[in-house]
């Protein structure tokens, strides 16, 4: 990767890269298979330090992992929604992020979980919050020679959980019209922490900071949900395309925010 700089492109599942190479959208001179790097294959959960998710771990390995299902059900759902089983068997959560699509399913779920992207290959290893990783459609903070090695997610606090919802016209094999990831931590009947990630409603996946902060210290009642939904809607800046109009997407952003928060809170009660 270092020797070839911006002429090299890592391959993991190849489910985006091979299509892009065939279409001439990306034309790397060298493709580097990263699937044998140990740190990139690692999926390790600890109740103290949280999750280390190697950039090359496939979506199906995430979806079938008992720790993932229990502690990060929203991210697990997002990984299990990408394309078909054929795609999930090859594609990785790390690759979904590095592809840089505004509509990536796992990225809003990662944002909701306050994930950091650990990047190696430059002068020093650096950690970047996932909401800052994608800088424009298809472009990321990765510099030539750099690689996403792992995604680091904090251990869930007591009474925490997450959820991811996307709206598409059919159940499988489609690209999000809107995707919303939410995580909630409850304490004494009120929201102690909350994060909302939005997909497919702006040029990059978004952290809906105002919507998230509006919930802190509140009971997750009708009025709190209403406010968070409105602020998430206002944070979005969608476009009109064949999947939906901007107005429609703004509306659905609010609806899914409310629903994802409700599901995350129901799950948090049980933890």
């Amino acid at each position: 990767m270092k020797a070839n700089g911006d002429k090299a492109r890592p391959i993991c599942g190849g489910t985006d890269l091979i299509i892009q190479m065939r279409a001439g959208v990306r034309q790397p001179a060298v493709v580097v298979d990263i699937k044998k790097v140990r740190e990139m294959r690692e999926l390790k959960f600890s109740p103290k330090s949280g999750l280390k998710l190697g950039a090359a771990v496939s979506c199906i390995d995430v979806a079938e992992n008992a720790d993932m299902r229990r502690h990060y059900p929203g991210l697990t759902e997002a990984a299990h929604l990408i394309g078909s089983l054929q795609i999930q068997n090859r594609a990785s959560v790390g690759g979904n992020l590095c592809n840089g699509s505004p509509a990536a399913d796992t990225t809003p779920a990662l944002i909701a979980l306050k994930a950091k992207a650990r990047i190696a290959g430059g002068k020093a290893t650096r950690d970047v919050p996932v909401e800052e990783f994608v800088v424009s459609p298809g472009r990321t903070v990765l510099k030539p020679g750099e690689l996403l090695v792992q995604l680091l997610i904090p251990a869930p606090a007591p009474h925490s959980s997450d959820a991811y919802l996307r709206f598409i016209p059919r159940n499988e094999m489609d690209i999000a019209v809107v995707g919303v990831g939410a995580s909630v931590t409850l304490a004494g009947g009120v929201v102690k922490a909350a994060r909302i990630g939005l997909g497919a409603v702006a040029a990059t996946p978004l952290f809906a900071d105002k919507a998230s902060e509006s919930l802190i210290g509140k009971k997750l009642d009708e009025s709190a949900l209403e406010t968070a939904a409105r602020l998430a809607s206002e944070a979005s800046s969608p476009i009109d395309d064949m999947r939906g109009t901007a107005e429609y997407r703004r509306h659905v952003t609010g609806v899914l925010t409310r629903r994802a928060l409700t599901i995350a809170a129901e799950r948090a009660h049980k933890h």
Partner: protein
Amino acid sequence: MSKKTLVEVNINGEEVEFLCEPRQSLLECLRDVLEMTGSKEGCLTGDCGACSVLIDGRAVCSCLMLGVEAQGKEIRTVEGLADGNTLHPLQQKFLEHASLQCGICTPGFLMSATALLERNPNPTEAEIRYALAGNLCRCTGYDKIVRAVLDAAKSMKSGVRTSRAA
């Protein structure tokens, strides 16, 4: 033209070696290098599933995998499903239920269904529809395919392996 790479794999139970260019997809290696044309080329974008094969027991689109990535893997293709003249129960039930018309999608459907039944020998109709969501058929409307998979699961459970001759 890049230098060719030697790739060693196990295909349908046999150790196989082939030479391919690093840019060639596994589908190209199967069809053009090994002359195994059972796996079909459809969309080349991972949408249609006609090229589905099993890699270490999991269905993947062979058009979205490089041949060199298959090094050391166990590959299963539609050519390996039947046991001599005895069709696999899925193949037999596809025939009985008329689950194909033009047949281009069929090898992919068979491989996805094989992966499903090996993991879940008793799937519900909904589970079958989800498991086959990555395979498109423009002829049958899917119902006949789903019925064939349900029926194949039933016959595999009862251990009856029907033959084409019977």
